[in-house]
């Protein structure tokens, strides 16, 4: 059996946690308990987990506006996350960041980013820090098909090659940037080819197949740890919900989402595979499901009961380290 049971159990638990976390965020948002706007990542769990499951807390990831899955995959506390998303003083960022600005430096998660293309340049820096200090830590950045066209991302690809940085560029191609299709906005025939042309190994994998993404990441991460420089991975996947929660999604085809949820569900694929191969049993997964539901329910209860920030003490705090 090519994968350890506890590894597969861990993978399933994290994928399931992301799925349920996002589905619950949608409910909570609709219930009005989450302020602002939220970008859910359900449907894309396989990419987040495959990219992060082998990373340590010292390895760094940089995320996007659609970052919940990346945070959970990197080990952020889901209760702390929910409290943050609900704007509570006890949230991971004390309620000052919100859904688009969750970070947890203890877990090597240096931040979701509300600026498309903001993360990859920063991950170059995280990788440079590791390289300069001579650790074997690496950095991994998440980008979307849309952010691939932002100049900051393109510059970062080149700089990573020039400085031979231990940086894995993960491009989640879910086919859409808001209501614009990737086919329209990417002038190239293949994003993976375009990335390769910058001078780094580059592949395109089925982002709904956890194992395909995992194997590609494993190779890329090893390359980075061995000082062989950056790698780009394009993972094609599906966005199960709107660009933001509440998006009417008029731009999507009739039944497109329903069909995707039925036929392109990375979580179902994972379950089918591990059952078929007899790597895991239904019971094992059912137990995890129950635990996950409990965890999420607890996170929401924590979030709803957590204290709100106090303007008198919190508004002006933490702009600078020293004044």
């Amino acid at each position, binding site marked *: 059996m090519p994968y350890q049971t506890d590894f597969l159990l861990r993978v399933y638990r994290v994928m399931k946690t992301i799925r349920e976390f996002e589905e619950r965020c949608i409910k909570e948002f609709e219930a009005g308990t989450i*302020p602002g706007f939220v970008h859910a990542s359900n449907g894309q769990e396989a990419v987040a987990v495959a990219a992060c499951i082998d990373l340590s807390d010292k390895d760094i990831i940089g995320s996007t506006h659609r970052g919940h899955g990346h945070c959970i995959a990197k080990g952020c506390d889901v209760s702390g996350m929910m409290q943050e998303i609900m704007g509570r003083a006890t949230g991971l960022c004390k309620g000052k960041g*919100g859904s688009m600005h969750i970070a947890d430096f203890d877990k090597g998660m240096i931040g979701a980013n509300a*600026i498309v293309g903001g993360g990859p340049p920063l991950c170059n820096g995280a990788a440079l820090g590791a390289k300069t200090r001579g650790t074997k830590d690496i950095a991994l950045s998440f980008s979307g098909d849309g952010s691939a066209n932002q100049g900051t991302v393109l510059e970062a690809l080149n700089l990573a090659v020039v400085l031979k940085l231990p940086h894995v560029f993960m491009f989640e191609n879910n086919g*859409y940037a*808001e209501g614009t299709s990737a086919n*329209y906005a990417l*002038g190239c025939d293949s994003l993976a080819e375009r990335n390769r042309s910058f001078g780094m190994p580059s592949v395109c994998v089925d982002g709904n197949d956890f194992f395909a993404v995992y194997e590609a990441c494993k190779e890329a991460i090893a390359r980075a740890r061995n000082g062989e420089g950056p790698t780009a991975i394009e993972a094609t996947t599906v966005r199960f919900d709107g660009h933001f929660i509440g998006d009417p*999604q008029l731009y*999507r085809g009739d039944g497109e989402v329903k069909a995707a949820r039925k036929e392109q569900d990375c979580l179902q694929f994972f379950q089918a595979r591990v059952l078929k191969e007899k790597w895991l049993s239904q019971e094992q997964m059912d137990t995890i499901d129950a635990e996950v539901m409990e965890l999420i329910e607890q996170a929401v209860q924590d979030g709803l009961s957590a204290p709100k920030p106090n303007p008198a003490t919190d508004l002006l705090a933490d702009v600078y380290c020293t004044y």
Partner: protein
Amino acid sequence: MNKPAIITPVAGSTSVKTYREAINDALRQEMRRDPNVIIMGEEVSGGAGCPGQDDAYGGVFGVTKGLMPEFGRERVIDTPISESAIIGAAAGAANNGLRPVVELMFFDFIGVCFDQIFNQAAKFRYMFGGKSRTPMVIRGTVGAGWRAGAQHSNMLHPVVTHMPGLKVVMPSNAYDAKGLMIEAIRDDDPVIFLEHKIMYDNKCEVPDESYSIPFGEAAFPRQGNDVTIVAMSNMVNRAIEAADQLAKEGIECDVIDPRTVSPLDDEAILESVEVTGRLVIVDEAHERCSLAADISSIVAEKGFHSLKAPIRKVTAPHTPVPFAPELEDAYVPSVEKIIAAVRDVLEA
């Protein structure tokens, strides 16, 4: 004092329109009038290359809704997420016969295209000895109150007001928004048009016909002889609320809405302070090098001798915009803070 609350009354029918509808109206009327007016940006139509509907968004705030169906994708252009390329394309097109109206979904995104704005478009005419024209409008949403977090809630008007070559428009209501947008499109210089995202549903009577409001002419939504209050964008509405509350106590505020902050109608402000001798400036931007500071310094230089009290600035604090509603609400200058500042300058 007796100044018109609105500078240019317009003949013909009017109807109640939202701030969003008023801007949409202006864009449609100008696009009908002039085939060289085009619209560019991310999701300005929405649905490009998608299996579903076209014009799926009409801008994420719906401001450009319906324009693509009427004018086609040639004139309402959805773009990749490449703001430098978008602004550059607009500036280059403006140099080559078009009058682009380009949208920055959130004006915070100037961070990734600032060079094309302040170093390129803004400077062409001067650098090239007056031989170029760059008629373009950059629309962007600004402001807090939307729980959108630190990177989607900035004002940033002080940064563009500082820049020679740019004109900066900050309408506070639907009437001004329509008239100023039409003026902006017809203007031959690069114009920054800042739309406060929490005002999109604010309504008022707006003429159905096309009309324009000249730049550099303030409006006077409230008049009084006790204290001058200068405010811009959505802060005008809070200043009016403060003035109305104070009026109940017999404190008469002269509320000035510059409407455009570059050029700025400093005469109107100086004339008012000549009468009141007291000035409060409300600015949703951070305090340092803000427009509040700018206006204060103009009065401290040119209107000093009419001043009877310190000039009070009511601004956002020197912090990023926080996410949590309680914090964000405390961040934005409130009616209470404006009232307190007015009392201050009356007692001082």
